[in-house]
């Protein structure tokens, strides 16, 4: 069927409300009798709770309740593991230790909540926090990943023998044998540090238990409303029908808003159940730095074995991954790192030893990229070092190792984050790389521009990297498509939305099937009362898994429409077409009936229907892929380093992306631009700095630097389309691709700009200061 809307640059259905301040965000929810919560948080990262006295806080006028862990009785429970450990791998070690709603015995991270105050206003609730007297006995903090595994390290979880949270070895082929045959082995220690998602909207929850209707409603900034609904029902002994979770407009997710559960999420809900009044808690920015999950810190010792002509024989990647104080998210992030170190390359032999450690820091869970940027950084850095040692051009060494287009489906023989074999479904990597090389003007830059600029005393460099992104993983999503008697098309899906344009791209899919404008498709996401099966928005899967469920439902509704219209218009289905909200006879357009009239006919109020008939023009469908759809891309950058200030100016930035069938190029490009901004932060600006006591030293936007419009360059974007064979739309995810390779391309370009010094960048993020230190060290080595 011809596509009229899928693939078009259509402006978004949701924007007029967002632009005028009319869209509902969680903090906009205001209910009669609503109370406000504030949390007392630990100043120490690791401490024993000796005593806590909340009596003065309870006496403060305007305070309704103050709760500690002891007040919760049997309702005090550890959170459920959100993701289970991989079941199929032999000899795996995995210690599940999940977060608690309020600290009962021991604090494990600075900012962990000790008590909750409920008051008539947020101002009073915060005043009352000062009335609480807490005695904490500080313990030595576990901060450094390698020290965490030393025998004398303090224990984050006293019941374990060490801070090892998990240990997993994955293998492909025989790395040791490949190493023996290699002409050259590149071995490096590579470190990636912590950052935060910093969605512009902090987290927030408004919970309302209505004792009369016996219904619990939770407005939640979550990316996964349905699992939250199911989990809360289970936790509090309610039927799932009694619990409604609404994720309205959410001001950015980026990963950390998928969590089951955050302590505040449980506590606000528990409090409304105690009090029978609505309770609101809105995180402030400082709390966001302490109490919202973070990501990225890993220490790798990685090795690449190659032939003299630059062909990869094998990769060894041993690394320590920091999971923070608890590990509810299992191994998702480090498994992504393992997988993405394979890149778009043919790597016949692999050995990967993964150790996950507990530290006294915020929980680690996926953050846009979710372990992928680290994996890409590893393989791309090793390739760059190898290229230099072998005297091969960096682009050329990548060309020599890219998987050919006839290699698919390609099995890397290790398991991925979904615990299924890492299989690349499809791809065509070389044209993607060549397009980026052409767009950035690689050859000309190296031959003409760089020498000329260098002669002028300027330090300008170029970087080009290739990468893959596993996207669109299972298990499944679902959707319901309904033709309303008004002719409007209603769509409900379980995923939440945080700015991805679902109200538009999903509408385009339905519009193509039902012959209406996307503006006539009304979509509901993230309300468990509207659709109650699903997992959520994460892992670049909305445009793959949810979109294909919507597509399937729309195809079924189209079938129902045609069947009924065929009867009404007395014309065979093949001779009918769906145009402008009507079904009409192709050759006789005046013989037509509107979708709305058909919807009325499909739902008779009296009379008899044939047994087995379903009412209405409606269908529910699900989509679950066998494994994920693998997107790919190449990024290229030209940067200039100021030798005085060590500031790096990105002069040009090229993105070539292959995310299969493009649903809406405007939205795809927006995703890529935003990803680039985060990736640039992860390259040069954004680093959470912890001291040896586990204290975060830069917990504000004045100290933790998000890139502004002055730092983020204009991206030059181009698309190639290799449709995924795993789903009818052929789509692949693109939500994270913009961010994933940026630190790798940035490092390569900065090295190129400072080629005179033989600088090797083996860490991310950098900063002007850190770049200065590295350059000084390189100068010493060079001049020695």
């Amino acid at each position: 069927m011809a596509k009229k809307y899928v693939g078009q640059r259509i402006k978004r259905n949701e924007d007029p409300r967002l632009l005028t301040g009319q869209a509902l965000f969680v903090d906009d929810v205001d209910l009669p009798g609503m109370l406000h919560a504030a949390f007392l948080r630990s100043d120490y990262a690791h401490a024993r709770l000796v005593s806590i006295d909340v009596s003065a806080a309870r006496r403060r006028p305007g305070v309704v309740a103050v709760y500690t862990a002891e007040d919760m009785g049997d309702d005090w429970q550890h959170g459920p593991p959100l993701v289970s450990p991989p079941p199929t791998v032999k000899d795996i070690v995995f210690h599940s230790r999940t977060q608690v709603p309020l600290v009962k015995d021991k604090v494990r991270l600075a900012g962990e909540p000790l008590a909750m105050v409920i008051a008539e206003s947020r101002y009073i609730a915060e005043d009352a926090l000062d009335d609480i007297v807490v005695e904490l006995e500080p313990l030595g903090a576990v901060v450094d990943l390698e020290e965490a595994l030393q025998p004398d390290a303090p224990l984050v979880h006293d019941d374990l023998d060490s801070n090892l949270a998990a240990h997993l070895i994955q293998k492909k082929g025989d790395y040791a044998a490949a190493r023996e045959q290699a002409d050259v082995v590149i071995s490096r220690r590579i470190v990636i540090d912590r950052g935060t998602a910093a969605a512009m909207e902090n987290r927030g929850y408004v919970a309302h238990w209505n004792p009369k209707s016996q219904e619990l409603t939770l407005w939640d900034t979550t990316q996964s409303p349905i699992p939250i609904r199911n989990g809360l029902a289970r936790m509090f002994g309610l039927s799932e029908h009694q619990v409604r979770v609404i994720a309205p407009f959410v001001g950015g997710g980026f990963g950390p808003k998928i969590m089951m559960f955050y302590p505040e999420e449980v506590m606000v809900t528990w409090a409304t159940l105690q009090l029978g009044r609505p309770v609101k808690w809105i995180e402030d920015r400082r709390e966001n730095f302490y109490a919202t999950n973070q990501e990225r810190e890993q220490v790798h010792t990685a090795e690449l074995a190659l032939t003299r002509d630059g062909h990869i024989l094998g990769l060894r990647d041993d690394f320590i991954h920091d999971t923070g104080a608890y590990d509810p998210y299992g191994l998702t992030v480090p498994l992504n790192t393992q997988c993405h170190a394979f890149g778009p390359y043919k790597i016949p032999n692999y050995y990967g030893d993964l150790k996950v450690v507990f530290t006294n820091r915020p929980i680690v869970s996926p953050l846009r990229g979710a372990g992928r940027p680290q994996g890409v950084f590893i393989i791309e850095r090793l390739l760059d070092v190898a290229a230099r040692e072998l005297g091969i051009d960096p682009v050329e060494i990548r060309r020599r190792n890219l998987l050919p287009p006839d290699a698919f489906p390609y099995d890397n023989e290790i398991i991925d984050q979904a615990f299924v074999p890492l299989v690349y479904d499809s791809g065509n990597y070389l044209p993607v790389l060549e397009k980026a090389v052409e767009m950035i003007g690689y050859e000309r830059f190296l031959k003409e521009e760089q020498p000329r600029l260098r002669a002028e005393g300027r330090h300008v460099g170029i970087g080009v990297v290739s990468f893959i992104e596993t996207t669109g993983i299972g298990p499944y999503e679902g959707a319901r498509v309904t033709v309303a008697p008004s002719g409007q098309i209603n769509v409900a899906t379980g995923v939440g939305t945080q700015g991805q344009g679902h109200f538009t791209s999903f509408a385009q899919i339905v519009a193509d099937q039902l012959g209406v404008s996307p503006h006539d498709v009304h979509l509901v996401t993230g309300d468990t009362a509207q659709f109650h099966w699903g997992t959520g928005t994460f892992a670049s899967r909305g445009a793959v898994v949810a979109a294909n469920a919507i597509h399937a439902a729309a195809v079924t509704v189209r079938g129902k429409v045609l069947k009924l219209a065929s009867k009404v218009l007395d014309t065979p289905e093949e001779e009918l077409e769906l145009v402008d909200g009507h079904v009409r006879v192709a050759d006789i357009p005046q013989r037509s009936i509107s979708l709305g009239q058909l919807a009325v006919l499909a739902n008779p109020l009296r009379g008899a229907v044939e047994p087995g008939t379903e009412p209405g023009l409606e269908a529910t469908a699900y989509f679950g892929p066998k494994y994920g759809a693998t997107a790919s891309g190449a990024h290229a950058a030209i940067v200039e380093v100021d030798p005085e200030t060590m500031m790096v100016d990105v002069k040009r930035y090229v993105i070539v992306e292959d995310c299969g069938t493009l649903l809406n190029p405007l939205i795809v490009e927006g995703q890529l631009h935003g990803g680039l901004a985060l990736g640039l932060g992860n390259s040069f600006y954004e680093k959470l700095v912890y001291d040896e006591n586990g204290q975060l030293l830069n917990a504000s936007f004045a100290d933790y630097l998000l890139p502004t419009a002055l730092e983020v360059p204009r991206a030059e974007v181009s698309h190639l389309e290799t449709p995924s064979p795993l789903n009818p739309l052929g789509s692949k995810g693109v939500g994270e691709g913009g961010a994933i390779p940026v630190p790798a391309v940035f490092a390569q370009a900065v090295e190129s700009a400072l080629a005179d010094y033989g600088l090797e960048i083996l860490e991310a993020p950098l900063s002007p200061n850190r770049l200065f230190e590295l350059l000084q060290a390189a100068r010493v080595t060079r001049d020695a």
Partner: protein
Amino acid sequence: MNNLHTITVTVNDTPYERTVEPRLLLSDFLRHDLGLTGTHVGCEHGVCGACTVLFDGEPVRSCLMFAVQANGHKITTVEALGTPDNLHPLQEAFWESHAVQCGFCTPGFLMSLVPFLEQNPDPTEEEIREAISGNLCRCTGYQHIVDAVKLAAKRK
């Protein structure tokens, strides 16, 4: 806190008289006392710019002001610009350029840009980037926002 003040603030041409604590932030006053929730709060320390409103026509961070400081002054919020059916030309340009993703920072950008475009109707890309460098956006990478400002300027 019984040290209350009665203030009169004209917001979007409507005068409001309210009795408030001196510590009440202007952002909380607008959002919670007046129910004008289009103004968003992203950091409460004056960096992100999401809470930008016009104070006697000049952009300010409403999280860095107390409501009592607005006594006798005129405040303009995003609700005054346009409605979903009748967008302000800058909102229209944002829509066409896909300058909105999650939309949380958007009202702050708009309120920074409306006076900017009045003072500088034909800005260069560098000037636009400078003008929005006090507003943080985590979704768009700013590119489509810059494009939207150019489009709005071109149409003036």
